[in-house]
């Protein structure tokens, strides 16, 4: 078995009387693209929030590259090599695409301190060169000077991905990257994610089942806060409990 990059142990979280997550165990192996699926309200977003550090779990722990990150804040987890994208495009709409990515490069530990009060960022060629490379990677090079607010929806999603990549993560948490995209855009997004997956381990939360079955090496299924199955696409597709949860709709 490959090495575990992310290991989540018995993660639990209650909201008032609702058990959003009940003792979820999940392992993402180095190099794989692991998809997390489940009907609405299954706890996928809660799970991503807790893995990324936006929410603290009630109990359970998150190990990353052998290190216990459970009590670390979000920015410390990013520094450890875990980046996330957001379900709703979460880019700086007033800034150019290039400035957005440059900001992500600047935030990285190896890019040096940002407690610099004198030297204009405009002269830090290295930040922008690297930002251009990231935009190139997601196919936005031609759009680098465009203000993010004026980009098409699919382009904003790609920009979101470029910013996450600019932090040079070991693990990418993608929260519904296909959300709200049209068929053409989502086709391009699938190709993009497949390309990125060759370099980075990915945990993908997605509603689009076509995309999930095309991309994922392994799939985990959440239902009512419990993990009911983990395995290859075929194994998950054949699982009777999973079939019952989805009533056969999408599978």
């Amino acid at each position, binding site marked *: 078995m490959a090495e575990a990059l992310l290991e989540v142990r018995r993660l639990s979280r209650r909201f008032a009387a609702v058990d959003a997550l009940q003792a979820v165990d999940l392992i993402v192996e180095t190099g794989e693209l692991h998809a997390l699926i489940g009907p609405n309200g299954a706890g996928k977003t809660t799970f991503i929030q807790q893995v990324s550090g936006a929410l603290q779990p009630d109990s359970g722990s998150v190990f990353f590259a052998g290190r216990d990150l459970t009590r670390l804040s979000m920015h410390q987890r990013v520094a450890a090599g875990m980046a996330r994208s957001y379900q709703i495009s979460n880019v*700086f709409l007033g800034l150019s695409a290039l400035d957005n990515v440059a900001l992500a490069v600047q935030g990285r530990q190896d890019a040096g301190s940002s407690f610099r009060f004198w030297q204009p960022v405009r002269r830090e060629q290295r930040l922008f060169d690297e930002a251009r490379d990231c935009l190139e990677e997601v196919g936005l090079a031609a759009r680098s000077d465009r203000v993010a607010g004026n980009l098409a929806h699919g382009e904003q999603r790609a920009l979101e991905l470029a910013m996450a990549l600019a932090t040079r993560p070991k693990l990418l948490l993608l929260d519904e990257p296909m959300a709200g995209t049209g068929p053409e855009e989502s086709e391009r997004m699938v190709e993009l994610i497949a390309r990125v997956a060759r370099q980075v381990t990915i945990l993908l939360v997605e509603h689009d089942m076509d995309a999930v079955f095309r991309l994922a090496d392994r799939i985990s299924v959440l239902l009512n806060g419990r993990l009911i199955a983990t395995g290859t696409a075929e194994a998950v597709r054949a699982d009777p409990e999973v079939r019952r949860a989805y009533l056969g709709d999408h599978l």
Partner: protein
Amino acid sequence: MAFYQPARYQKPVAGALLLALIALPPALTALGQEFYIGFATRLLIFALAASSLNLVLGFGGMFSLGHAAFFGAGAYAAAICMRAGISEALLVLPLAMLVAGALALLVGAISLRTRGVYFIMITLAFAQMAYYLFVSARAWGGDDGLPLPGRMTLAGLSLGSDSALFYAALGCLALAVVFLGSLAGARFGRTIQAIRENETRMEALGYPVFRYRLVCFVLGGALAGLAGALLANLTGLASPNLLQWTQSGTLLVMVIIGGVGYLYGGVVGAVVLLSLEEVLSGFTLHWPIGLGLLLLGIVLLAPRGVAALFGKTGG
């Protein structure tokens, strides 16, 4: 909003203005209007205080209603220093900044854990606590404030004349504006402006948001302390009124009139507000009504502040 970017003609205009200001004291003296040198000094000092709040509010996005605490702390620090016999500005001013900055560190470390209306309330509460502390401190003059034994000296030269103090205040303001201008385009400035826009995203890019906010808050506090020390020298008194919440409100009004997040927002706001006050109070005792109407007009016609009419923001 995007990152602050200076307008193209900003530097030459600022340079011309600086030259005009340098020529102001001799011009006023020649016209026999020396009284206005003191008034102009007051403008410069409040421009500095409002600019320090603009760093916190405009660039850092922190709506502090307790900024006067740092302004007042600087004034008292200068007064206490000078009563103890230290009157060299090169010692007094850094000390005042240090004291105000330390107070901002304490207030910020606690209040920056809250957001929104709670942040407004907790900064207000801290400032009022500081106010009552100084009002009730008999050793520091209580209600009456703490008179200064004289004025500072700068590298041995007396700042006793109004012109000399004017130049000292002008120098401090010019240095502060240059510092803030470079900060805005440097890594730190871009970081805090991005945090103002979307702090969760910045946290998710690996930025320790709290630390950047705190440093911004402390820098703002220290600059306010510098302004406070200068004002105490102008008026000859460190008064507890400097710490009152109405003073914080005045600084906020200046920044909002001038332009939140614009380099010259604080300067423009201070000049507009204090000049209006000066002119209108010459006509009638009920000048605050006229001032209110004018402010209403400014906010309606230039909702992003007067400086926004000239400056711009861009990527």
